[in-house]
């Protein structure tokens, strides 16, 4: 099963269970930045409580083997459930529960719809500004590269920089934003 087929299966499961979603990770950074490979399909689900998430997981059981153990990220304590494709290519599926973090809530509210011919489905992605803010917030080496790439490809002149700067100030990541902007060569 290809990555786009797996993503389509995950999005279809969300739709079937009436769960709103937002595809993040490399899908979003490639859409707005420089295309890169990935090893997983990252999806944020608007679910409260465990039942909706469990229904999505159950619907995916044919294609994905999920770890029953819920995990928490140590930055925001968001919850995620991780699975691996049962098909030959061991791609991962990471489902993140939408939670009450102000930025995550706003990011989800601002998400954008797209139709992907590759996936043959409608999917929802975060805005480019929110991808940048999120990546700078996480701050791992690969996140900073992703943020840099989206800034470079989109161009600060086309982005809502006031929005980005506002969130970076709240997250304490203004220096990371400035470093990313400073290192973009003149185009």
């Amino acid at each position, binding site marked *: 099963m290809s990555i786009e087929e797996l993503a389509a299966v995950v999005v279809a499961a969300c739709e079937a269970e009436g769960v709103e979603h937002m595809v993040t990770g490399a*899908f979003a950074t*490639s859409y707005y930045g420089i295309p890169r490979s990935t090893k997983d399909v990252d999806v944020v689900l608007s679910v409260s409580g465990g039942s909706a998430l469990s229904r999505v997981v159950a619907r995916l059981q044919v294609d994905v083997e999920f770890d029953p153990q819920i995990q928490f990220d140590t930055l925001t304590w968001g919850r*995620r459930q991780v699975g691996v494709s049962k098909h030959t*290519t061991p791609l991962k599926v990471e489902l993140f529960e939408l939670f009450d973090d102000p930025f995550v809530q706003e990011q989800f509210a601002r998400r954008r719809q797209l139709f*992907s011919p590759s996936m043959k489905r409608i999917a929802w992605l975060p805005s480019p500004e929110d991808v940048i803010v999120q990546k700078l917030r996480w701050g791992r080496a690969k996140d900073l590269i992703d943020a840099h790439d989206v800034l470079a490809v989109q161009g600060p002149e086309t982005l809502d920089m006031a929005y980005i700067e506002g969130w970076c100030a709240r997250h304490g990541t203004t220096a990371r934003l400035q470093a990313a902007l400073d290192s973009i*060569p003149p185009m």
Partner: protein
Amino acid sequence: MQHNVLSLLHDNHSQHPSRTQRRVDEVEQRNDRVVIVKAVCGLYLSPCLPTMPTIHDDPAALKALQDDIYRQKVLRARGMTALERLAEAFELTNSVFTRMHEGAMWQLGTTDPAKGWMEVRRRMDRLGKANDHGIYTTEAPTA
């Protein structure tokens, strides 16, 4: 004629300390054969390799080259539609897994694709654990 690469490197280090420092992490002499164990950029230097100037000797030129390469990547991405970029990410991902599978089969010396995929799965599992270390936990946050 035997070459003593250690002395060559020492001489080189005296002349170009920063260059040698960057390129060679560790040198090991075993019996009469000299082996460069690890070298930055994956280069295995031969004792006979002449010392040639490279762009790494000129930080300004190196930065200009790096910027030019990055600029080409950005301009290429800008020349694509967002959906084309997404489709390319899919293509890259599928291609990377195919290459990993081929590499695993070659390393295992097997012609059985299933064994190759099992090895890729094992490697991805290890990679995932390494990447998640310190980032994700199964312990619920304390209030």
